[in-house]
């Protein structure tokens, strides 16, 4: 405990120099900007600035890049709330309730809670990172393909709680997303699936074009030219700030989202977006009024946004503690360190305390900076809603095209976005939810791949799923939850929460 405190002091002394503070500030600014642009996510932002960091000293370099990383998580919620366009793939869940709140005039509150939740999640995660990094990282390594498959199967059961409405329709959407996710090279055998000669589809359809298309483009398709265009909302100061009730309602979702996001983020290979989906589903399940979700429930914003930020910091745990990247973004951060001759590994914390603790301290500082940056910006951003939609939507189209193109310099992505936009539009018309499809696209490669990897490891024996402790735990949890869900069908006592939900929706 003592040494941790000393190390923290060391870290802060490294960070609180004018140079490093300004790098943190610049990183956070760029990250926010990058997050606000639809489609362009932290990966693109970090890769853009990677070369500039070659000339800096390692601590400053990593502070700058890390600032972009979580800055983007903060910024990603802005367009989601204001215009229902995911600023980056992980902000998809915020689009649902955040945008609904904006339409009710509570955009400022949504933005503010999102910033506050992100701050709390970020800071608490850094604490977790500080104390728990090495043991957690080792636990994370124990996650092999079998554990992964069981985890995700259990997750799918949880996610059936995600959206209201017809279960059949939701399942159809997940299956559709899963099918779309199979497009591309099959990593186990090398076959191209459903790619019709387009090499660019080799790596699959990609979450970003799907998310931006299904949410952003479909939104402008549905709204532009609609006879009852949105009233231009003129927000007052009171609208900018969350009410006491909203703050109280968000407290537990923020905390739950933080823990959930952090744990999911640690697992190598998991995507941050999964943490937002699970958080949303959990909040919905735990809420006393689940029918409010989808229509502007603040929990639906607070939970996912916190989970998002916590996941991005959790993802750094294995990288810093063991030198093991959990995904593409930590891999780039790892590379940035390697370029300076520093290779994070098991000895990193011992051999380079200044950099490790400097990074930790910079994360504290960065979170504060971002909170201070984002709260006043709420007032500015909300004014975007004043712009008449007739001028706004072509601009939105332009930014969506640029954002999606910039990710991989690929026009195929823009084409996918267009197709997904059309699909999203039709789905809305025919009363389907689009969020499960995005989840399916993300999950399909992971679930299938882990499943087949696990079978390859056991040479075909299905027993592997029951032989490993972590895997058994998850399967057990999933089974229990499924049984609970089926309970009303067997007992027929009292109304299930779903029936209450449908009743509530019908009476609205």
């Amino acid at each position, binding site marked *: 405990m003592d040494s941790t405190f000393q190390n923290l002091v060391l870290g802060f002394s490294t960070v609180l120099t004018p140079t490093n503070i300004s790098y943190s500030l610049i990183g956070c600014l760029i990250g926010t900007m990058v997050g606000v642009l639809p489609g362009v996510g932290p990966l*693109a932002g970090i890769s*853009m600035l990677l070369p500039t960091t070659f000339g800096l000293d390692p601590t400053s370099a990593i502070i700058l890049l890390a600032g972009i990383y979580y800055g983007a998580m903060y910024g990603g919620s802005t367009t989601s709330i204001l215009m229902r366009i995911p600023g980056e793939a992980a902000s998809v869940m915020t689009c649902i309730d955040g945008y609904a709140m904006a339409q009710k005039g509570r955009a400022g509150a949504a933005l503010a809670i999102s910033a506050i939740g992100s701050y709390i999640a970020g800071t608490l995660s850094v604490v977790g990172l500080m104390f728990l990094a090495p043991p957690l990282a080792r636990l994370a390594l124990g996650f092999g393909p079998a554990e992964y498959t069981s985890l995700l199967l259990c997750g799918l059961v949880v996610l059936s709680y995600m959206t209201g409405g017809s279960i*059949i*329709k939701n*399942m*159809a959407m997940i*299956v*559709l997303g*899963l*099918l779309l996710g*199979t497009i591309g090279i*099959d990593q*186990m*055998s090398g*076959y191209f*699936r*459903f790619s019709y000669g387009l090499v660019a589809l080799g790596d699959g359809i990609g979450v970003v074009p799907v998310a931006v298309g299904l949410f952003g*483009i479909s939104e*402008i*398709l*549905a*709204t*532009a*030219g*609609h*006879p009852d265009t949105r009233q231009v909302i003129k927000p007052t100061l009171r609208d900018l700030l969350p009410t006491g009730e909203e703050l109280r309602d968000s407290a537990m979702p923020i905390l739950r989202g933080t823990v959930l996001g952090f744990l999911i983020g640690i697992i190598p290979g998991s995507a941050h977006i999964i943490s937002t989906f699970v958080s949303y589903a959990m909040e919905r399940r735990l809420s006393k009024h689940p029918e409010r979700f989808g229509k502007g429930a603040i929990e639906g914003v607070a939970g996912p946004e916190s989970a998002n930020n916590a996941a991005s910091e959790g993802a750094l745990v294995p990288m810093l503690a063991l030198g093991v990247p959990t995904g593409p973004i930590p891999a780039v951060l790892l590379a940035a360190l390697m370029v300076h001759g520093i290779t994070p590994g098991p000895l990193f914390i011992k051999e380079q305390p200044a950099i490790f603790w400097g990074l930790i301290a910079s994360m504290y500082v960065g979170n504060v900076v971002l909170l201070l940056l984002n709260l006043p910006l709420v007032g500015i951003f909300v004014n975007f809603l004043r712009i008449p939609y*007739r*001028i706004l*939507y*072509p*601009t939105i*189209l*332009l930014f969506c*095209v*640029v954002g999606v*193109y*910039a990710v991989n*310099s690929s*026009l195929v992505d*823009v*084409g996918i*976005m*267009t197709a997904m*936009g*059309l699909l999203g*539009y039709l789905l809305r*018309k*025919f*009363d*389907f939810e689009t969020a499960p499809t995005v989840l399916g696209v993300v999950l*399909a490669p992971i679930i*299938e791949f882990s*499943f*087949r990897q696990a*079978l*390859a490891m056991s*040479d*075909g*024996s*299905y027993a592997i799923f029951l032989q490993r402790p972590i895997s058994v735990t998850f399967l057990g949890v999933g089974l229990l939850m499924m049984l609970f869900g089926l309970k009303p069908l067997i007992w027929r006592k009292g109304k299930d929460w779903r029936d209450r939900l449908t009743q509530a929706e019908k009476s609205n």
Partner: protein
Amino acid sequence: MTIDRVSGSALVLLGLFVVWERRVLPLGTHTRPGPGYFPLLLSMLLIVLGALLIFQGGSAQALRSLAWPEAPHALAILACSAFATLFLEQIGYRISMGIILGFLLGVMERLRLWLVLTLTLGLPLGTFWLFDSLLRVPLPRGAWGF
């Protein structure tokens, strides 16, 4: 003819399409699933769900009652997006975006001329500078270098 019946049928058709397309992929066995295994599983699920929708779909909203007031605008936006997909790299970012904005703002929305001109010129040039020069993310320059 309700919307659920229509969407259900669409899902069934999609499922059948995938089953057909998948025939080139080996199925493998239960112990060693091949590339075709999962797509087949998923498409069968899709067909089942679609069929369920068709059966239960009687109580949903009628197809005829669906209103499409925003359709002309939606088509325009889709056309612009498709135009960008096809021509952005050949004509260059700035010109294509200029055309798209000009079309949407000038023709579809019929805004005032000075506003249209400012936005049509300002936005493509401004965003190009932002991305290409400032952020060093190359945007397509078109066959003749602009």
